[in-house]
């Protein structure tokens, strides 16, 4: 008790010898304080504690600490572990270890805290009587608790916040501060193949729900020291960790600032997924079209960062966001680049055609069959009329019936487990389609129209874009049924105008499609990778040049072209590639 009173009074002794082992001088100890690990706004060097007393200071006694912790975390929570212990210092002092079972790894807690604090293995031994209330936690941080990420906090509310993210906290008898160290170790899903962005050729790794695993996946692919990962917390209750990733010197700082500012403005209770962030920060939340890319592929995420986009990773969500987005980006798949360009280009063009089919095909069929039969060759017109003859409904009702049925099948198969969902899809499509035709409820041609539309909508790689197209198909159906092709074009023009007005973080949504040359290079088509000399312009990257203009200088003629251009004063960052896809030397 005398020791405690001395600690409370701040009566500090000079260091001395204990058991013949040299003790570290206090000044030397104090020099190392504050550099051990990442802290937060509340973590301070010991000397600073009195300068700004925290709102919720740590109680003076361990009993008080325990009472306060039980107040804050509740009495009956079995996963909240408050462990009283005796620490091996000379003289021995008491401490309280706080962690959440399940969030903190038992191994880490045992190794870092219990073993290092309760077993006197250390040489030299620490003279606890030489420490004051103000610096004892800092000395523990720098000399005793073996953890990479460690900090001292003086506000008990902040300590609890950290503990709720999986860290562990050590309260030391009489100390004004508490040592908080990294102990995260909850059960989580491993790195698996992305479920929504599968590719035939390309990496199989996908993001998981664990923030640190996701940031590591990004770091592994982008090893530049310029990669920045700014950390934020959102959610009054969930206190969800968010990382804003970008490449310094490449990403436009205005874009980074805009994203950070918008996230900073979010004031909500909980944030279970990145989808909510998207809605909070996008320019036009009432638009049916998504304005940010999301991906569960680290390779795609890193490709986005390398183009000057800003990435957002949310703890607990396997879907990372990329900003800004635009219409063209939603029709791109990583596989476009992983496959050789002769296949990548046509496949991407096919996707755009599929997008148009998915949007307009049923409406076009309704318009032609109701208003413009003269467009069709006689045989086809007769075939359509014949197939529709036993159907008791107008074409619009028939189309709506099939479209709604298709949506039902799709929705039900999405929610079911994979094998059941697939079976459900087949059974639903076959049975309902065939049975509906046999029963005379729909015509066979309508089944074909709806099936083709459904297939086309599945080719769009970005799911929300597909959803937007599915949604807009219905008003177009009504317009076509009312005004024929005129109605369809009116609807399409309205959609086009809406898209023309949309922006994502200030960047026009149709931006890349507006410029013919980049558009043909890597928007509606995919040219060879060695022609991608410049990054896309729409995120306004600080560094426009992606690669050298002449890379394949070993190919016949290319080296001469490079030399010629360099003689003429052409830079390495020219607008078009001179490589021209020359073949390998014979």
């Amino acid at each position, binding site marked *: 008790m005398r020791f405690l009173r001395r600690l409370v009074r701040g009566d500090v002794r000079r260091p001395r010898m204990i058991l013949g082992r040299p003790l570290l001088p206090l000044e030397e100890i104090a020099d190392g304080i504050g550099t051990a690990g990442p802290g937060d706004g509340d973590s301070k060097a010991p000397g600073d504690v009195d300068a700004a007393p925290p709102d919720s200071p740590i109680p003076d006694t361990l009993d008080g600490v325990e009472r306060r912790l039980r107040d804050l975390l509740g009495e009956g929570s079995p996963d909240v572990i408050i462990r009283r212990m005796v620490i091996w210092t000379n003289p021995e002092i008491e401490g309280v270890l706080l962690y959440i079972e399940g969030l903190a790894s038992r191994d880490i807690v045992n190794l870092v805290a219990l073993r290092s604090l309760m077993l006197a293995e250390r040489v030299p031994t620490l003279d606890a009587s030489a420490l004051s209330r103000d610096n004892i936690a800092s000395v523990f941080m720098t000399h005793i608790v073996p953890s990479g990420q460690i900090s001292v906090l003086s506000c008990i509310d902040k300590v609890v916040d950290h503990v709720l993210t999986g860290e562990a906290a050590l309260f030391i008898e009489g100390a004004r501060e508490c040592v908080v160290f990294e102990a995260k170790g909850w059960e989580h899903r491993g790195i698996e193949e992305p479920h929504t962005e599968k590719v035939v050729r390309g990496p199989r790794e996908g993001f998981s729900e664990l923030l640190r695993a996701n940031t590591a996946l990004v770091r592994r692919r982008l090893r530049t020291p310029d990669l920045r990962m700014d950390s934020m917390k959102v959610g009054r209750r969930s206190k969800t960790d968010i990382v804003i990733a970008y490449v310094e010197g490449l990403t436009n700082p205005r874009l980074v600032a805009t994203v950070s500012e918008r996230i900073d403005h979010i004031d909500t209770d909980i944030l279970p997924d990145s989808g909510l962030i998207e809605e909070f920060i996008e320019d036009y939340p009432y638009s049916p079209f998504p304005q940010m890319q999301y991906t569960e592929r680290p390779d795609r995420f890193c490709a986005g960062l390398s183009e000057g986009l800003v990435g957002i990773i949310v703890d607990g969500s396997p879907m990372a966001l990329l900003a800004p987005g635009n219409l063209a980006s939603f029709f791109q798949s990583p596989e476009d680049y992983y496959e050789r360009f002769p296949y990548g280009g046509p496949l991407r063009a096919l996707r755009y055609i599929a997008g148009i089919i998915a949007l307009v095909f049923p409406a076009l069929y309704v318009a032609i069959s109701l208003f413009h039969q003269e467009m069709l060759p006689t045989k086809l017109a007769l075939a359509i009329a014949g197939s529709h003859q036993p159907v008791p409904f107008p074409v619009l009702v028939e189309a709506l019936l099939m479209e709604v049925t298709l949506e039902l099948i799709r929705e039900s198969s999405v929610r079911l487990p994979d094998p059941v969902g697939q079976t459900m899809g087949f059974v639903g499509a076959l049975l309902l389609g065939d049975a509906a035709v046999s029963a005379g409820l729909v015509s066979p041609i309508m089944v074909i129209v709806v099936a083709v539309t459904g297939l086309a909508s599945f080719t769009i790689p970005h799911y929300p874009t597909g959803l937007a197209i599915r949604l807009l198909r219905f008003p177009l159906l009504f317009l076509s049924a009312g*005004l024929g092709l005129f109605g369809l074009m009116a609807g399409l023009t*309205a959609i086009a105008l809406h898209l023309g007005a949309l922006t994502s973080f200030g960047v026009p949504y149709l931006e890349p499609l507006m410029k013919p040359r980049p558009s043909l290079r890597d928007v509606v088509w995919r040219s060879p990778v060695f022609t991608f000399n410049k990054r896309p312009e729409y995120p306004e990257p600080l560094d426009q040049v992606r690669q050298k203009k002449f890379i394949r200088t070993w190919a016949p003629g290319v080296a001469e072209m490079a030399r010629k251009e360099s003689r003429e004063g052409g830079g390495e960052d020219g607008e078009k590639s001179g490589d021209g896809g020359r073949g390998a030397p014979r």
Partner: protein
Amino acid sequence: MIVFATGFLAAARILVPVAGTAAWMAALIGGAIGLGIGGLAGMLAGRFPGHSLVRMAERIFGAPLGKLIGLTFAAYCTVVLGLGSRQSVLAMWIAFLQTTPPVLISAVFYALVIYAAYLGIGAIARVSLIFFSLVVVSLVVLTALAVPVAAPGRLLPIVGNGLGPLIRAGFLAASYAGESIVVLAFLRHLKDKRGASRAMATGVAVGMVVMAVATGFGVMMLGVRGISRVTFPVLETARMVGFGQFLERAEILFLALWFSAALLKLATVFYASITSIADVLGLRDYRPLVIPYALLGTALSLIPESVLETFDYLDVFVKYSVWYAIALPVVLLLGAVVLGRRGGDDHVQSKDEH
């Protein structure tokens, strides 16, 4: 897009009676005059960077006269809007939607124009770029399909009804090219003024070449007499081509595409008009004017009671509007030079600027 979106629907019907078989050349002459008008407009914009038409006029001639010039410009746009929308609605109604009341078609048309005007010139410009490409592609396809049906001999004699009528028809065609002066209303929104002048010149040139090709093929396929008997020669031309055994009577597809192009053109004219009126009235935001002005446009488009009456109005308009299109930049430019007026950048922030 402004130049030929509605123009080429009926241009042949107006040019052929005057120039005969040389109507296609009249379109080219009109294009040349249009380029001249565009050049004058570009010089004016270069002298008054960041100024709207009304601001330019006010700076040159003072507020009262400047506002009056602004109102004449708005009136010009209103007539272009009324006649253009009436033509587009009629083309749809006559050709394909005869059981639908034209008022309903007109209402849908104006609803979209209002929507476009609310979104602003940025959205209209971006979408126009897409539709412009589609319209040009559609016309190239149509021309390619029309080659087997066309009879080049019908273009003879090469100068048609003579040189005098050809030049007269050229000025009629120039009234379409002269519509490009509407861009004066929003040149201030463009960052790249020099690029804007170039784009305007390209637009006029491409538009008038397309009009020349459409008129020439109209003559080759329908003949001079045939053209004088039909309401919209381009539509009749499109009716005569087919996609092999796959699609017949594909003119509806073309018309649907052109309808969207016409809509965007008229939305641009609508926007130019209301922003000018807002400038005259000193309003910071043009949006309160959108609905009242749309009602005015709809009413104006319903004044012609029949198709023939619409064309009577159109005949009068194309005869005189070209002189307004020439006079406006000439008067402003002369006034600026004589009075020594030159503008700094007084770019007025509006809610529409993107």
